[in-house]
């Protein structure tokens, strides 16, 4: 900055096409340094010690783009440093530090911390060729590209995904053989949501801003992650009406992935129903959001979700109630749902009862007589089963640090 206080130098720079080497351009840095520029804000970190914190408070954060981020702070990465002294000290001071930001296996679960997701991704962590290493700029652009035909607002609405990087464009550059025959890999219709790379490998398993956010840890869907970690798998986030056992069978048939042992409910009840009734607040919010997600509604239907979303209108967490109401508003006939998620409990209950009453008298109430969704053959809800599952809900307080 100091050198560019000289106006003659600045104007000389405007006259030539060479890049100004005094200004860091993340695209010119190596992948690790480039990602750290974004990660300085979009990461979960803390000061290494009290002295660092005092210095930062007095003089500002020491990190400058192009520096090695970890030399200036402790970046939390439970998958790698879960047992480090620093992490132990953090957990001693704040026992919920990890749970409030990460799934049990160390994968980040809150929005705005995508750097932590990236550095755990094989496309970044295991990449040897800088040209084929995933960084933030593999998909995102901080300034809309000159050739991007979309209006600026449309580009911004994609979370600033660059032109040509939506759909499968962000992955196809490195995974050309798969891109050449997408359906052979996905086993889904090539034009369907099930054939989009992001939907399977970066599903919406993070929470923030009152919605689900794509995970930025590139993974492959597995039933194991849902059973052992508690994280919803990509298959059941679209196939909301299917069980974990169903997903396990298809993953074994298509990809040879051995499914884990499942409980009775996990074999018999749709995964999303389990997440709504038994899951912690974060999981309930994700399940509720997906019930309003168009690809999931197309794959799973939507009428049957009303009683579950109605149940979540009474959730103890404001955010879960908000997400549930938004998903209800995406359903036919409920676009104008009059529900205030922060209204007094009695008013919220009344609104939920109204929703359920209207739903019971609609054809949607009996369109799915499916035991996996806890509907009896006569179309009535198996409220006893719902209650049993509800009684096993994870009620531990959860503060997600988005």
């Amino acid at each position, binding site marked *: 900055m100091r050198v560019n206080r000289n*106006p003659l130098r*600045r*104007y000389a720079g*405007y006259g030539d096409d060479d890049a100004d080497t005094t200004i860091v351009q993340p695209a010119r840095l190596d992948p690790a340094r480039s990602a750290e520029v974004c990660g300085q804000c979009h990461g979960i970190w803390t000061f290494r010690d009290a002295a660092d914190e005092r210095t930062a408070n007095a003089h500002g954060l020491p990190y400058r783009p192009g520096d090695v981020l970890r030399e200036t702070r402790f970046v939390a990465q439970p998958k790698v440093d879960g047992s480090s002294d620093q992490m132990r000290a953090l957990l001693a001071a704040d026992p919920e530090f990890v749970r409030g930001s990460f799934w049990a296996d160390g994968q980040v679960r809150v929005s705005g911390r995508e750097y932590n997701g990236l550095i755990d991704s094989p496309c970044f962590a295991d990449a040897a060729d800088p040209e084929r290493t995933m960084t933030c700029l593999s998909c995102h652009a901080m300034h809309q590209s000159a050739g991007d035909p979309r209006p600026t607002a449309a580009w911004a609405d994609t979370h600033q995904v660059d032109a040509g990087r939506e759909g499968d464009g962000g992955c196809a550059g490195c995974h050309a053989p798969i891109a050449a025959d997408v359906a052979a890999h996905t086993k889904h219709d090539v034009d369907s949501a099930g054939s989009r790379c992001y939907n399977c490998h970066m599903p919406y398993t993070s929470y923030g801003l009152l919605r689900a956010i794509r995970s930025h840890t590139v993974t492959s869907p597995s039933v194991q992650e849902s059973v052992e970690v508690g994280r919803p798998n990509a298959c059941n986030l679209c196939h909301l009406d299917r069980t974990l056992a169903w997903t396990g069978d298809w993953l074994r048939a298509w990809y040879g992935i051995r499914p884990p042992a499942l409980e009775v409910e996990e074999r018999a009840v749709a995964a999303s129903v389990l997440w709504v009734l038994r899951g912690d607040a974060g999981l309930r919010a994700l399940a509720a959001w997906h019930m309003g997600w168009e690809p999931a509604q197309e794959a799973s239907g939507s009428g049957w979700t009303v009683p579950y979303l109605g149940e979540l209108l009474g959730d103890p967490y404001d955010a879960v109630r908000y997400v549930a109401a938004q998903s209800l508003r995406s359903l036919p006939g409920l676009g104008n749902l009059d529900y205030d998620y922060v209204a007094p409990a009695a008013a919220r209950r009344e609104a939920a009862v109204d929703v359920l009453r209207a739903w019971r008298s609609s054809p949607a109430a009996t369109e799915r007589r499916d035991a996996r969704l806890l509907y009896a053959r006569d179309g009535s809800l198996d409220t006893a089963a719902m209650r049993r599952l509800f009684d096993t809900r994870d009620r531990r307080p959860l503060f997600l640090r988005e």
Partner: protein
Amino acid sequence: MPPAGATTGATTPADYARRHLRFGWWSLLVFLTLGLVLETLHGFKVGFYLDVANSTRRLMWTLAHAHGALLGLVHLVFGLSLRVPGERTPARLALLSRALVGATVLLPGGFFLGGVTFYSGDPGVGVALVPVGAVLLLLAVLLAARAS
């Protein structure tokens, strides 16, 4: 050798007074019109002028409007002040007049050109006219002060 001021047709204080009153009123007309145009751009929220990315243009054109209008007033004051007797030699009066006219062209003109094309936070190269105009204005004010 022609008398001082011969190239501009002004030779006496009265000639200069007329010249600067005329110049001042026309300057006011031009730069107040510019102000009206800028207000219109505000009124219609024209991005070319108001977008954050165009803040340099907005600043430069605002400065052009303000400096032009104020310099127009300076011309009027100078024209009127010439009616008051003072210690003015024809050569200094000619220099003062030219410096003031030059400042009135270069200062707002430089600001305006600096906003036509610009480089992010830096105005376009036209802004280089501004310091030249500023020096001429200082010279004119100095000469006017000495002649008063």
